């Protein structure tokens, strides 16, 4: 695959490294000489002086033959402009934008950029996953399938504690779930699975059922 990344900061650097290690062709468009130098030193001749929202840079990069275009600068308005150009002018099949302001997710979607990665939300959910007081954590968005992977933690206050799954709404809301319990191997649940405090359920959920599931598993009172 030919992958073009606009923005050679930390995100652009890590992405380039992964794609190169997986054997793909990578080009990073970056105006800052210091950032380009770091990329070149570690990953080879993979940079282009320019900016992802400039048509001259995109032409020089050969965007029309790219399979993937990723806009990973720190400015959402530039990421939007670059992605719209890549998607609508150069017809790149897969276009992804880094979102610096989570509130822009809907704006990007309404303006034709379907796939966005919300850096702040990822950070938040990752932190929540590590802290036992949060009963509901979004782990992964599978936007193209309309699915979400979430972690449900059975806390003392949870309505799920000491119940079997058939007594809860979880089977109606989640497509499938895996039970992670300290001291035993992870297992796929069925309706007879009984939940105990401390259990974690890794659920695959249609995105339109997320809010219902969140309401169902939250402890009465807390809204986190």
């Amino acid at each position, binding site marked *: 695959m030919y992958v073009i990344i606009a923005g050679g900061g930390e995100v652009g650097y890590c992405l380039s490294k992964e794609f190169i290690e997986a054997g793909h062709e990578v080009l990073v468009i970056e105006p800052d000489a210091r950032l380009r130098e770091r990329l070149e030193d570690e990953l080879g001749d993979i940079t282009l002086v320019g900016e992802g*929202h*400039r*048509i*001259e840079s995109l032409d020089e990069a050969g965007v029309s033959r790219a399979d993937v275009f990723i806009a990973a600068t720190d*400015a*959402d*308005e*530039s990421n*939007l*402009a670059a992605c*719209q*150009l890549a998607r*609508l*002018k150069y017809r790149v099949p897969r276009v992804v934008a880094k979102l610096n*302001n989570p*509130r*822009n997710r809907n*704006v990007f979607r*309404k*303006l034709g950029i379907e796939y966005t990665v919300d850096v702040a939300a990822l950070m938040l959910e990752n932190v929540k996953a590590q802290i036992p007081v949060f009963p509901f954590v979004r782990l992964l968005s599978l936007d193209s399938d309309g699915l979400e992977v979430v972690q449900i933690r059975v806390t003392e206050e949870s309505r799920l504690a000491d119940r079997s799954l058939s007594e809860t709404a979880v089977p109606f809301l989640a497509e499938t779930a895996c039970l992670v319990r300290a001291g035993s191997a992870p297992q796929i649940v069925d309706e007879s699975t009984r939940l105990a405090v401390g259990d974690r359920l890794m659920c695959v959920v249609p995105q339109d059922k997320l809010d219902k599931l969140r309401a169902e598993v939250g402890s009465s009172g807390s809204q986190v």
Partner: protein
Amino acid sequence: MNAVIMGSGRVASELATLLDREGHKITVIDLDPAQFEKLPETFGGRTVVGDATDEDVLRKAGLPAADAFIALTRDDDRNAMAAQIAKHIFGVRKVICRIYDPLREEFYKTLGLEAISPIMVFARLVKGRLEE
């Protein structure tokens, strides 16, 4: 007419002043309140401090009831983003944005935006004068 102008630089302030004088209801949005000093003492419109690429700021500036939105900051990306939000999310009837880069002016026109490149306008004007 009820018009919202993004940016309070020279062109934006001139436009706001002209429209205000003609009795239109004008709101000017800028990130930097010091920019509003470019507006004359007599300016009777509203000013809003904030980022016009933010839906909430646009709502506060009255976009849902606006007849026109004009994006006139120095930044093409921000102008294009705000103009598209105004057009596609708020459904404002008349949306105009300044896009300095002539290549991108063309691109945004293909997206249905009324984009104007001052560089091209001036170049065409001078060429016209030469041909007179």
